[in-house]
């Protein structure tokens, strides 16, 4: 057993990879990013991955200040930082909703921290453990792009002497995107009816709103499409299907309430038709793709097993976490999960076991969904997954909201970890890291983010009048995501969930998943789940890449478009983060 740790020890004469400097820097950055984005999520409703920032700071600190940092060492630093940050994203999405519900229904809800914390920690570990066997499938076979993973690898590998052309393109993309995002955020070009909230109105004064005629002016979104190319087209077709076929048809034949017009009509179509259908398609196609790719997944497990017990496959013997360690750590995490559920008053141990098993299986499936959507489009449908988690758990637990949201926390943390782990492993593949080092460091440390996020949320809640209501509607921290999740719980309690859409969409998703076109169901489901301005921007990126490949060839596209797209992604991400921090500081001064 101790051989595995001897492989991780750093010999000063060896190529620096898993070092004390990288680990400490990653932890410090991860904690800071976690705190910043927890606040940002409560204030603005969104957070961001911290990998790009961590990679840049790692480059400055490890290579610039310490003068002995290496590319693979910086990859370890950003793996840890993004891992700690992303667990916070999962917590912040769900936990505040429990606070909001408790303040309204305190007769029915308990709010004991330890079970919730245990569930979050279990989710953080399971999210990594469950996705590890799919590394080969997603990265080496499907060769999913993971746009942010590529962007981070481009940062880590940026070296002016190594490739000045690529460095120039990276810089150009960064400057263009940063300036654009800043102008959009400041609203300097905003014009009522034409350009608002970073969306360009394409209605020309006559196209109806239910066609969603708008374009989200996001360089990051466009760049994700640039990186995906032809493979991302189903995402665009799904958006067209939803908004240019289903929506006008539904309005035309009178399937929508006649009293609704304008934005209210758009919201009705989105909330009651397209979004639930999209979620159903996502789940159905993920299930089918599991079946279709069963051979590859089985092969991955065989590789794990044979690498542990034989020397025949010495090529793979130091690459992955051995199966026994996966099972051991996973087993411990499932026990923690069970203990968390069992500690909720009124939960019988038999039901706790059942919920732990179902919750773990759901984590595995939804982790796969999120990893695939992130790999294909850089988008994570976390709210859709949480909606299903809440619906299923409310049914299983007879409406016990505390247990439902406890499981939802675990699932949200787990799927955030799954997507982040795959993103980091993609970066690791591109820079030549050993996957085993990234995997061990992620599940060993990322659970810290759960503790940090809990502390932040409790502190902010306590900062309200009388030690309560520090966030929520009417406060300085409106917590929009938590408000949405709260409304989902209430609609499940009131039995107004569109379960027919989930089922019908799921069956369509199964057929789409069986079609011989990679990612068809996942992409179409995601497109119907998202607003059309986003899919339109992404689709333009896909078409642009296809045109360039046709004119200049694939190698040109790889060498020129990839660094440019990486720069576009990084520029927008950094300005977005900077704006969050600025808003935080402004709020701190009573702004």
């Amino acid at each position, binding site marked *: 057993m101790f051989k595995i740790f001897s492989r991780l020890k750093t010999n000063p004469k060896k190529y620096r990879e898993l070092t004390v400097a990288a680990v400490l820097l990653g932890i410090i950055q991860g904690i800071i990013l976690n705190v910043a984005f927890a606040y940002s999520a409560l204030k603005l409703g969104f957070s961001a991955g911290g990998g790009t920032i961590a990679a840049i700071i790692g480059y400055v600190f490890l290579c610039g200040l310490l003068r002995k940092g290496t590319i693979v060492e910086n990859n370890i630093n950003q793996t840890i930082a993004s891992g700690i940050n992303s667990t916070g994203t999962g917590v912040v999405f769900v936990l505040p909703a429990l606070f909001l519900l408790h303040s309204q229904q305190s007769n029915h809800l308990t709010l004991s921290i330890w079970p919730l914390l245990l569930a979050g920690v279990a989710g953080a570990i399971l999210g990594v453990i469950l996705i590890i066997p799919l590394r080969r499938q997603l990265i080496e*076979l499907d060769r999913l792009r993971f746009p942010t993973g590529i962007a981070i690898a481009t940062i880590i590998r940026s070296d002016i002497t190594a490739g000045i052309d690529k460095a120039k393109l990276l810089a150009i993309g960064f400057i263009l995107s940063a300036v654009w995002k800043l102008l959009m955020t400041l609203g300097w070009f905003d014009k009522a009816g034409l350009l608002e909230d970073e969306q360009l109105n394409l209605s020309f004064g006559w196209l109806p709103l239910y066609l969603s005629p708008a374009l989200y002016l996001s360089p990051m979104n466009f760049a994700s499409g640039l990186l995906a190319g032809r493979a991302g087209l189903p995402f665009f077709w799904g958006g067209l299907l939803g908004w240019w076929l289903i929506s006008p048809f539904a309005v035309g034949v009178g399937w929508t309430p006649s009293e609704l017009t304008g934005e209210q009509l758009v919201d009705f179509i989105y909330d009651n038709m397209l979004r639930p259908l999209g979620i159903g398609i996502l789940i159905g196609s993920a299930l089918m793709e599991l079946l279709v790719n069963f051979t590859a997944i089985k092969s991955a497990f065989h590789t794990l097993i044979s690498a542990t017990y034989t020397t025949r496959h010495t090529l793979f013997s130091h690459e992955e976490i051995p199966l026994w360690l996966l099972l051991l750590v996973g087993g411990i995490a499932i026990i923690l999960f069970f203990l968390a559920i069992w500690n909720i008053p009124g939960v019988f141990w038999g039901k706790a076991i059942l919920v732990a098993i179902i919750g773990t299986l759901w984590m595995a499936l939804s982790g796969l969904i999120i990893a695939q959507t992130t790999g294909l489009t850089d988008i994570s449908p976390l709210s859709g997954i949480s909606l299903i988690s809440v619906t299923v758990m409310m049914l299983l637990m007879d409406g016990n909201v505390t247990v439902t949201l406890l499981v939802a926390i675990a699932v949200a943390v787990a799927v955030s970890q799954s997507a982040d782990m795959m993103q980091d492993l993609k970066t690791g593949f591109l820079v030549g890291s050993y996957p085993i080092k990234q995997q061990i460091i992620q599940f060993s440390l990322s659970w810290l983010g759960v503790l940090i996020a809990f502390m932040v949320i409790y502190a902010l809640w306590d900062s309200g009048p009388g030690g309560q209501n520090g966030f929520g509607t009417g406060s300085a921290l409106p917590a929009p995501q938590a408000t949405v999740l709260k409304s989902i719980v209430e609609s499940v309690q009131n039995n107004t969930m569109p379960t*027919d859409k989930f089922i019908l969409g799921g069956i369509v998703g199964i057929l789409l998943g069986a079609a011989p076109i990679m990612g068809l169901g996942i992409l179409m489901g995601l497109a119907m789940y998202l607003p059309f301005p986003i899919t339109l921007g992404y689709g333009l990126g896909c078409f642009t890449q296809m045109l360039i490949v046709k004119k200049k060839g694939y190698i040109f596209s790889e060498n020129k478009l990839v660094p440019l797209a990486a720069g576009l992604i990084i520029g927008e991400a950094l300005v977005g983060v900077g704006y969050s921090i600025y808003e935080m500081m402004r709020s701190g001064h009573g702004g």
Partner: protein
Amino acid sequence: MYMVGLSVFTISIIIALISAAKLPVPPQTWSDQLVVYVLAMVFALFGLWLLRRVAVISTNHSTVTTGSTCLSMELLQQLLTEMPNLKRDIEHSDRTAILNRVQILLDKAIIPFTAQQQEIFQQFGRTPGIKIIMVVALGERFLNRIWSAACDGHFKEASHSYLKALAAFEEALILLQLHQITKMN
């Protein structure tokens, strides 16, 4: 047949989704478009069957796939021919030459090889094909590691990674040749 299958599948899915969008009238669980949905799904299943049948037929056309598999083997052989040049660059600690050589190997051999993935699956079957692709991917990752190590000035690590990359590509070629022989027999 492919276009027929694709058209039937696409149109059926569109009709199914449109009909699924209608909200049921409470207290009904399903809308009155359920019959349309079911019919559309039946046609979609037929379209899917046609699409998958075309995929099976194209697998059985060995004259087409043999050409593609020869290309995979050629690419690997070309890669292995170039590897000693990379070894020389590493032994000379020539950073710029190493970075350029790795990029050329990735552009000219690895990326085109990964484009042959479906043909390899069709020719040899999914399980053997997966093994070959994974071994080449392992070699690709070690090529990336050579790039990183050379960029950081660690030529000993580059040398160590070179041996692993070479071993991976050699194993991939052997696997391809073995499966080719098995198929011919």
